[in-house]
């Protein structure tokens, strides 16, 4: 057993599962946004704003934000453990990534509910 404390789920199988589930959420969100734009070729502010007034769209978007954060956490954690061999440099990078993701999520919530 290799012990790890800065990965997202504390266990390999949970990280693996989270990464796959969040990938599906992000794929669905991407398909939805692209399809929405294709079906609204002359998209204006009012339509776009109205879309994000809807509760289901806010939930879907927040879910996508959280998915990006979780997906990036587990993915960048893997990359940092592969390439950054110095322990404190690695911890520094991992901490920076996690804090940045937290900031982006809170910022995203503010944008989503602020409009």
């Amino acid at each position, binding site marked *: *057993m*290799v*012990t*790890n404390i800065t*990965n997202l789920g504390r*266990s*390999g*199988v*949970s*990280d*693996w*599962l989270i990464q796959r589930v969040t990938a599906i959420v992000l794929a669905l969100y991407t398909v939805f946004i692209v399809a929405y734009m294709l079906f609204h070729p002359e998209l204006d502010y009012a339509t776009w704003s109205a879309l994000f007034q809807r509760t289901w769209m806010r939930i879907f978007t927040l879910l996508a934000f959280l998915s990006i954060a979780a997906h990036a956490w587990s993915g960048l*954690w*893997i990359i940092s*453990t*592969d*390439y950054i061999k110095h322990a404190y440099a690695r911890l520094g990078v991992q901490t920076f990534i996690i804090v940045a993701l937290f900031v982006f999520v809170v910022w995203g919530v503010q944008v989503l509910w602020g409009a």
Partner: protein
Amino acid sequence: MSTLQVSVYRYNAETDSAPYMQDFEIDTHGRDLMVLNILQMLKAKDSTLVFRASCREGVCGSDGMNMNGKNGLACVTPLSEVVKNNKLVLRPLPGLPVMRDLVVDMALFYKQYERIQPYLQNENPAPAIERLQSPEERDKLDGLYECILCACCSTSCPSFWWNPDKFVGPAGLLWAYRFMADSRDTATRDRLAEIDDPFSVFRCRGIMNCVNVCPKGLNPTRAIGKIRELLMANAT
């Protein structure tokens, strides 16, 4: 044209400050020899050349090496399979420390093999004669037990290159699944608990380099997938 250009990786820590490539010309008389035959001819020319070999028929797994960029067993790899433009480049297995010439230090590879406890464990009292297995149960071991631990797969795996101390590697994981799949083994849960971390199994990104090079035609990626399924089933 029966003269083959052979370039061999040479390194002797006692006399060389750095590894270098030594070039040879070998007359094959037009025969499609095995790469190991070529090495033996080189050894006759230059007795300081060092490589491992034993059974010379793909059973012992001693002469795993990198031939024209691809890992394999020198004894069962015919020249016609690897030689391009009449040139053969021989290097040690990548990713492991070189001890001398084509001989690598396999300590990390064996350490990972030891970690997966490669022996049958059964908590039930032993029966009078033997633990019986049905033909169907025995069939589940096909494609797993044939591994000869030549390390061709693990040393072609970037995940093993980066983390040979933490990632078990394709060979070790194939063996781990060989015991999980065995009806006579009752330690599957303990085996899974030992490797349920982000490194041991999950550093496998499924690029299938292992499948590409296995001289026995085995599929470690499939075995790793099965281990993931068992981990999922146990943890959800």
